[in-house]
């Protein structure tokens, strides 16, 4: 499978897992990546297996983009013992460091300084690995970003800061939470390389991330990539949306999956039938994941006291 098709498939996988989750109620609630698939998938396409990724609580996209087993992710989100983290992490805390996913952390901006620390570990290990961390536009208001950029720049840490700017922090538009625009300008005082790009174009994200990562691996120090995206669902499945219908419709029209599929179709690389087949295959795979998760047990209550110390 050519790489753009693999990336499209990954995006479809994220969308499908989320769609099947949206159809059920037995997982409490979720923060969906629907609409923002291209950011995670484009970024992960530029990472090496030994690199580490951290994400915010909006983690389904990043986890699946990083290649975690969908069945284990689904089980985790459903709270089953077969989940990536035995069902203890649940939404917002998924992690599989051996797979290069140091993990999600659902304290906004709370993952930034951790990512710098992970990058320090990578730098000292000297094996060329880098760290990427995905955070939102809302997280840019937190002082942790400043401390992270400064420390990472001082020490030239191999760190890619990826701002998934979906324009909203719950109900608050970015223009009302951030005085800086574009957000990538925040990196300028620290002398960091940066870019602001269309985060709905997976190929653009991939290229931009790959470019910045090359600089990072070459010892150029940290970089900042702002991806302009759209969240196509409410903040969480338990939150009311605050956007007007036309705004939401305009956002939906930017769907990164439709766009990637259209491009591949235009290039003659994937016709409608092939795309439909891809969607079906993914759908079946996801359904199998849900079936496995449904069949799996919840963790034993005794696990409430395991792995505390």
């Amino acid at each position, binding site marked *: 499978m050519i790489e753009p098709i693999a990336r499209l498939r990954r995006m479809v996988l994220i969308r499908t897992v989320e769609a099947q989750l949206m159809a059920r109620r037995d997982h409490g*609630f979720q923060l969906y990546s629907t609409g923002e698939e291209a950011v995670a998938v484009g970024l992960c396409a530029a990472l090496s297996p030994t690199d580490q990724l951290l994400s915010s609580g909006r983690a389904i996209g990043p986890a699946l983009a990083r290649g975690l087993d969908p069945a284990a992710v689904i089980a985790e989100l459903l709270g089953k013992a077969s989940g990536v983290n035995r*069902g203890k*992490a649940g939404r917002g805390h998924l992690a599989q460091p051996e797979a290069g996913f140091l993990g999600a952390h659902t*304290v906004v901006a709370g993952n930034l300084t951790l990512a710098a620390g992970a990058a320090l570990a990578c730098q000292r290990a000297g094996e060329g690995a880098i760290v990427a961390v995905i955070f939102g536009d809302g997280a840019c*208001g937190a002082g942790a970003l400043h401390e992270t950029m400064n420390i990472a720049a001082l020490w030239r840490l191999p760190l890619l800061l990826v701002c998934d700017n979906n324009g909203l922090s*719950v109900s608050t538009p970015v223009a009302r939470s*951030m005085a800086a625009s574009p957000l990538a300008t925040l990196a300028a005082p620290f002398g960091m390389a940066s870019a602001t790009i269309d985060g709905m174009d997976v190929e653009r994200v991939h290229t931009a991330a790959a470019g910045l990562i090359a600089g990072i691996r070459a010892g150029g120090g940290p970089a900042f990539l702002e991806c302009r995206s759209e969240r196509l669902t409410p903040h969480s499945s338990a939150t009311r949306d605050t956007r007007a219908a036309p705004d939401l419709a305009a956002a939906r029209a930017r769907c990164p999956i439709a766009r990637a599929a259209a491009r591949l179709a235009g290039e003659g690389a994937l016709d409608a039938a092939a795309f439909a087949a891809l969607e079906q295959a993914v759908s079946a795979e996801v359904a199998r994941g849900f079936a496995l998760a449904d069949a799996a047990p919840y963790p034993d209550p005794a696990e409430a006291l395991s792995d505390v110390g």
Partner: protein
Amino acid sequence: MSAEAAAGTARIFFREAIARALAEEMARDPRLLVLGQDVGAFGGSYKEFTGLHARFGDDRVRDMPVAEAGMVGVGVGAAALGHRTLVSITYMDFLMLALDPLVNYAAKARFKTGGRLRVPIVVKTTAGAKGQGVAHSQCIEAWMMGVPGLTVLAPSTPADAYGLLKAALRHDGPVVFIDHKRLFPKSGEVPLADHVLPIGAACVVRAGTDVTVTSHGYMVHIALEAAERLQAEAGISAEVIDLRSLAPLDTGTIAASVARTGAIVTLEEGQLTCGVGSEICFRLGEIMGRMPRAARVGPLAAPVSSNPVLEGECLPDAARLVAAVRKLLE
């Protein structure tokens, strides 16, 4: 029940009691500000700010960036210049990001300036677990209780939320006002008239003769549930005290109750170690000259997972309280 309550009440939700108290106090004090994430048109995570933005506008009800230290610091600075402020910290876990302006400055400003400054700030925050996992479920009120200069309030009913929030908004020092995710959808009778509760007064919410149970916030409802079960299952008559104010702590009311019942069981959702329960028991021993029979009930000594099975196992419930009371009275 107070005199006002007798004069007329209306049944409203806990979240509405918060909004009503705030609206009334904002009308009374044109300087009073509300700061927080999504407190504006959105109306707050639990709709507890509904209507305030429409009525008081952008200037007085301000959405803020996700910057808890900044939020509290700004609130404290405004309050130090006489602009009373309520800052909303969505979950109490995030209060950890904002302890420096609250504890290192606000709680000490009056003392350190020899009385030249007051900081009338209310930090309102939501404690407790309801399926949101390890970093959105914590209760750290015990930390706040030990900070000289801080007042700590935690209502369990709409009426008390209303009366205590008004008290907080008229207090001239820093207050931490703690509600709970599971309280917002609860309803109750709230006085129609202006009604300010005293700070530092606990309340006997169920009379009993065999054991005193103390609690605060959402856990008061668990205590009441357990009390009914104790009566029905074992003929044990439990007196339930809603602490309402954690700092200052109304040890008089508790001691008077324990003097009658001879035993105390404390219930809290926060960690037991260095928690509210052992503090109460120790002070009782000091007041009463000897320690009463005592037990404390709380969560397991572990993080609270969002996993329904593990969260259920971790949190204290009526069954655990019933068992603790029966064991103590055996």
